[in-house]
């Protein structure tokens, strides 16, 4: 499974400050972390703790104010636009809102995962290669969507849409999958299904998975490693078993009334 192999990701002294007319907001504060190959990491923390910012920094959708994200030997925060596009080909991103193009067919949406590999002019004309179609159809089959291939996305259910989004990410043949609350819009059964799918990719194909998640039970059940953000700082990094109730209360800033 050579095409799914990646190098270690080293995050060093990462800080992110957003400046708006209303003032500046420190979303990430001096984060240091290394993500080895084949890892399955769940990121927990309250809303606004910096989880999404961190995830978007890992594929270069956001450029950090300070610090570096080194993949193998290259610092992706310093890449040119073109080089960054090349890096992103190998990084699948799954969104909470699925972010599919609703008016296009399921197959078209999954093929979007292959656009990064095509020359621009072929992309404009939609001239995908036979290989692209094979990869896309294989992912559809794996996610049980083969019969929906020609359906328009806006005719699907929420669970099906998220599976299309996962198929699109997997069609990239990624080394790394980043998932931002992939299950938050789904019911508990579908949430479990999404997590099982991601664990399957991780276990069978060795894809590194980093996932933001609110549902603590799912994180503990499926992830190999948990990291926690609190107000932009990394406050926990360890195996699920190491996460005590007291720590969880601290991460979620839960103030319980003492009897």
């Amino acid at each position, binding site marked *: 499974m050579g095409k799914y192999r990646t190098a270690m990701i080293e995050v060093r002294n990462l800080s992110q400050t957003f400046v708006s007319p209303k003032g500046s907001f420190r979303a990430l504060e001096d984060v240091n972390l290394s993500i080895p190959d084949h890892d399955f990491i769940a990121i927990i923390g309250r809303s606004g703790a910096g989880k999404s910012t961190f995830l978007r920094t890992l594929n270069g959708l956001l450029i950090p104010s300070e610090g570096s994200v080194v993949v193998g030997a290259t610092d992706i925060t310093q890449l040119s636009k073109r080089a960054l596009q090349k890096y992103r080909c190998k*990084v699948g991103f799954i969104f909470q809102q699925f972010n599919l193009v609703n008016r296009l067919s399921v197959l078209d949406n999954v093929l*979007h995962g292959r*656009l*990064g590999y095509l020359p621009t002019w072929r*992309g*404009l004309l939609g001239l995908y290669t036979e290989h692209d179609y094979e990869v896309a159809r294989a992912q559809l089959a794996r996610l049980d969507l083969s019969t929906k291939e020609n359906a328009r996305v806006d005719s699907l259910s929420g669970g099906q849409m998220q599976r299309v*989004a996962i198929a699109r990410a997997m069609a*990239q043949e990624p080394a790394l999958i980043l998932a931002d609350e992939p299950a938050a819009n789904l019911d508990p059964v579908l949430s479990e299904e999404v997590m099982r799918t991601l664990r399957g990719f991780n276990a069978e194909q060795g894809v590194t998975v980093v996932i933001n998640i609110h549902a603590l039970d799912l994180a503990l059940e499926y992830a190999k490693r948990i990291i926690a953000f609190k107000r932009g700082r990394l406050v926990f990094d360890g195996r699920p078993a190491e996460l005590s109730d007291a720590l969880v209360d601290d991460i979620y800033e839960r103030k319980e009334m003492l009897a």
Partner: protein
Amino acid sequence: MIAIVLYVLSGIAIALLSGIAKGSMRRLWLGAAVGLLIAFVAFPFSRSLGNLTRETVNPTLLALATDFPWLFGLPVLLILTLLIARRGGPRGAWTAVVTGVATLLAGLVFYSQPVHLVRLAPINGLMELLTALVLLGAIGLAAWNRPRLRWPLLAVGLVAGVLAFFWLNSSQGGHTYLPNSAGYYKLLRPTPAGANLQLVDAYNAGLQARNQVAKENGLALAEPIQSLADLKGKIPAEAANQGYRMLQPSRLQYGAFAVFVLAGLMLGAGLLHLRNLRLEETGDLQAGVVLASVFSLLLPAFNATEFNPAKLVKGWPFLVQFGQKAWPPLLADPSTNRFPLQEVLSFMTITVEIALVGTFIAALVALPTSFLAARNLTGASPWMRGVFYFTRAFYNVDRGIDTLILALILVAAVGLGPFAGVLAMAIHSVADLGKLYSEAIENVDKGPIEALESTGTAGVNVLRWAILPQVLPLLVSYTVYRFEINFRVSIILGFVGAGGIGFFIQGAMAAGQYDQMIIGVIAIVIVVNLIDFASSYLRSRLV
């Protein structure tokens, strides 16, 4: 005099009608007070004549107040009314009644004044100052919602205002661009004692020389006069040049209409308010100001457009005659080898085809340029921002130049016929479509864009696969709608020689062939409705 009574009664009637509907009476009399203040300063109330028609000056009440100082009491009373109105209750209502009656009486007293001589006192620099203030106000308004730019922009507005003021007041290289604005607002001053007799003497002294000239040109000779009244309201040319005018208090202008209607309204609303003190609401002052503003915008507009139903009554026989000549339509007359129905059908086809081609070319140009005019796609670099502003500016200028004007110019360039019309339509519609397209692009769902960017897709392909599929139905819908508008535009294009049914109608009208013209009109009604129906059906299916 009957007119005045009618004006006052109609004011009272408005108050009564609104009172029956339990509308706020305080709002009405507050609005009337604001309206009266505006009328006092800005609306011509009466007329004063010089020697020539263009020397006529229509003074406002403010201008008349320098001749009749007691008129200054009116604005004082009105402002007092506005101040007392804040409290509401019977005191406000009483003030409204008193002010209404006082305004009425002031108007009537002025109306019954005799014709007499006055002298103009132009206020130099007033219009220039107003222009400067409007400039400052406009920039200030733009600055209001931008807290960071507020003070710099206000400073720019101030500098612009001062510059405009001095530019308008400068000699501007020996001539002036706006000759009417200098001393446009004129006050009327009383004349010194004996001015009347002096003017009569001067007129009689110059009479012989003038009659000499008149005799050589074979014109009627003038008689010596005993008083200025012998000139029937006019005054001698020399006197007019010296700034004298003959004030005619009973020749009322539209300002008088405003004053008497509003006084009646104020009186009526005040009385009804007294009768039922609950007829007041919290937002009365704002609503009153809005009412007064609308009234003050509409009234001068009606006056300027010479709105006059009497003319319609006078012209009625022509309409009857037109109807008799137009019906029944002459569909075909083989004996003279004329087939109007055939012509209408051919011209109508051309009209639709002009709209089709014009809209198509416009869409073709608007599609690529609208991406450059979308704010969300052009934020990447200062260079792209520049392109954005350039495209937007092009659209805005182009939108301002109407298809008909473009057609006039293009007919001169490429000759009579539909090609000029197509070009004009295409050029104008680019801006309209481009603006609609770019707004559709700006409102696109950002999710798919982010998703495609994160698969490593290059910029143009993000446009192609994340944005285009989302906006395409909207773009088609806008284009169909524009075609619908363009069809109606292309009807008119014929009138400037740019082809189509308008050309036929113009020709038939000019030749008095109303029974042929009417076929064109009926055809337009039918086709306009067909296209509207088809267009709205198509658009409802698209989105």
